[in-house]
């Protein structure tokens, strides 16, 4: 018993250090026109300002690669780790930071709020053909044809299960949604409004009559249906998780048997019987990219940073450190270790990521292209989410 406890404790501390805060993702485009403030982009590179203030996910900014950057450009890097997308938005709005590693659910909020500026891709030579095809031109970083973000990496929200209990891999997400789930009371769910999209993905497959085409473009009725499903799920939930460490201990300690997870959390749990799968309905995921503040004073350092971190080796180092698929897939061929990482996180598998709906901020403009209805905004999702747990 003591040994087990110690193991859990050390796991706790290790994972706190490594994944203190994790993330969210991006979305799908499709020629939707969105009203955004008109902010000019940077025209040409100038002199480096000497510093760069970054809001980032834990593990994105480490001395292992910032030292070389500072030596090259003279830009001193000041990272500030944020724990959630919502915290990132709040921090960026203070105006004290130059650049943020935003996931798609934060990105679109920042773009429509005028907090970040469009980018001049010509000034970022490393943002080229080697960026994974599925990570380019998504609505969270390209709005009305203007690019706003430089991709960093991505990951999927997978169904994690304890194979000692379930036997094989569950084929469907129904084990976490339906009242008659054999694992009722041992189910975990992600504790954030963006999780409503997971309910929508499930409904897209099982209730086509609702007409959901994009889980981030829900009208009032579709949102109500998703909330009803979440309320139904609430009755069989053992624990909600927002803290990665709590999720790991919940699976390892046996309180949770099935639930949404990230590949990297399964790795940290380091238990043979914990496995992940992508069920038949598909899933949501998070695509992270760099976005530059519209009020930055260190614009040249910011561009240099985006170019530097798009380089295959640096991008790969970030992806491996965080535990996600790198945006620059040229990294994969660089070594056997890199290839193994890419395979584990499906970095080059566009077919896999086609089944993933990247996290995107829901806004009133329907992202699926509908113009006859108004979609529900993230604010409505937030309010609705709080009624789920009761």
């Amino acid at each position: 018993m003591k040994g087990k406890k110690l193991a859990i404790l050390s796991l706790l501390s290790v994972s706190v250090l490594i994944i203190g805060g994790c993330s969210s993702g991006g979305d799908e485009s499709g020629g939707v026109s969105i009203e955004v403030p008109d902010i000019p982009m940077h025209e040409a590179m100038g002199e480096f300002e000497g510093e760069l203030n970054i809001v980032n996910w834990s593990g994105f900014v480490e001395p292992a690669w910032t030292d070389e950057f500072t030596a090259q450009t003279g830009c001193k890097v000041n990272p500030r780790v944020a724990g959630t997308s919502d915290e990132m938005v709040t921090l960026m709005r203070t105006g004290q930071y130059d650049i943020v590693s935003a996931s798609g659910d934060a990105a679109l909020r920042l773009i429509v709020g005028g907090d970040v500026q469009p980018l001049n891709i010509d000034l970022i030579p490393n943002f080229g053909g080697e960026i994974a095809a599925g990570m380019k031109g998504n609505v969270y970083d390209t709005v009305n044809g203007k690019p706003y973000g430089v991709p960093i990496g991505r990951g999927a929200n997978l169904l994690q299960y304890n194979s000692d209990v379930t036997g094989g891999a569950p084929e469907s997400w129904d084990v976490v949604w339906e009242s008659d789930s054999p694992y009722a009371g041992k189910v975990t769910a992600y504790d954030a409004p963006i999780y409503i999209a997971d309910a929508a993905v499930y409904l897209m497959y099982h209730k086509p009559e609702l007409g959901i085409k994009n889980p981030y473009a829900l009208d009032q009725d579709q949102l109500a249906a998703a909330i009803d499903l979440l309320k139904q799920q609430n009755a069989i939930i053992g624990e909600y998780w927002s803290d990665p460490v709590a999720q790991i201990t919940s699976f390892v300690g046996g309180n949770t048997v099935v639930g949404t997870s990230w590949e990297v959390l399964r790795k940290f749990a380091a238990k043979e019987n914990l496995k992940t799968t992508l069920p038949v309905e598909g899933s949501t995921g998070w695509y992270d990219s760099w976005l530059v503040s519209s009020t930055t004073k260190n614009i040249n350092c910011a561009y240099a940073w985006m170019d530097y971190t798009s380089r295959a080796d640096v991008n790969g180092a970030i992806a491996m450190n965080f535990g996600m698929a790198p945006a620059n897939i040229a990294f994969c061929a660089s070594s056997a270790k890199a290839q193994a990482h890419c395979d584990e996180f499906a970095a080059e598998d566009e077919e896999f990521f086609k089944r993933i709906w990247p996290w995107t901020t829901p806004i009133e403009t329907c992202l699926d292209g509908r113009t006859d209805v108004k979609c529900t905004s993230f604010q409505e999702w937030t309010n609705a989410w709080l009624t789920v747990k009761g």
Partner: protein
Amino acid sequence: MATGTKSRPISSFLLRNPRIRLIGLLALPMTWIIGVYIVSLFLLLITAFWYVDPFSSLVRPGFTLDNFIDVFTVPAYLSTSIRTLFIALAVTFLCILFAVPLGLYMAKIARPWVRNLLAVAITLPLWAGYLVKIIAMRLVFTEEGFFNWAMAPFGIKGPGFSVPIVVLTLTYLWFPYMALPVFTAIRQIPHNLFDASSDLGARGFMTIYRVVIPLIIPAIIAGSVFTFSLSLGDYLAARFTGGATQMIGSLIAANINLNPPVAAAFSMIPIAFVVIYLMVARRTGSLERM
């Protein structure tokens, strides 16, 4: 007044100007209370009347009562408030239930070294970090944790993370704040009151009910102000040991980035509960005797 032979110009000046003397005395604490405490509280509470721009999720100043209306009309919010109130009351009740017998034993029965040992045992957990204690409770009550392992031979299984475990965790966290004042109060009861009670024919429980409890009510009220108000505001215990349990604190924590006005409106609820509690306590006259 007789300052001896040396002249003390500052002292004499202050003596002649009582108002300046008062200002000098209160300047620092008042700056702290008004400048730091009240102003920041006011800034938080005023946000409750503001609203969030639905498009950009930015907070805009204004005046709306919608946030308060939501707090009182959305069923999920109401049930969360009521659940939190009951959790706080249960924690307070449990703390009293444990503290009175323990205080009696320590003050009146235990030998000095046992008493000191128990006093150390009660205060020692205060030295450990708050989060550490919550995580410790999480590890104890986890499915494959200590509790289920130790109770397995008796066929007993823990309830899993739920409201009872939250109550237990909060009781564990705040118990010293109840135990210490109760112990001190019982210690001050003269021994001969127990003898008198016994001479008049009262047995143990009657003595506790008719003599001890009335005398230590102020201490219980003092302790319960801590256990009650600290439980009302807590959210980490619910997050780590509550499973799907939602408390007022959880709602505030979830909203602080997403919808600060609703979070601010919710922060009024525990304040209201505590004010009502203090008013009731005041009517019993206990506050004067504290």
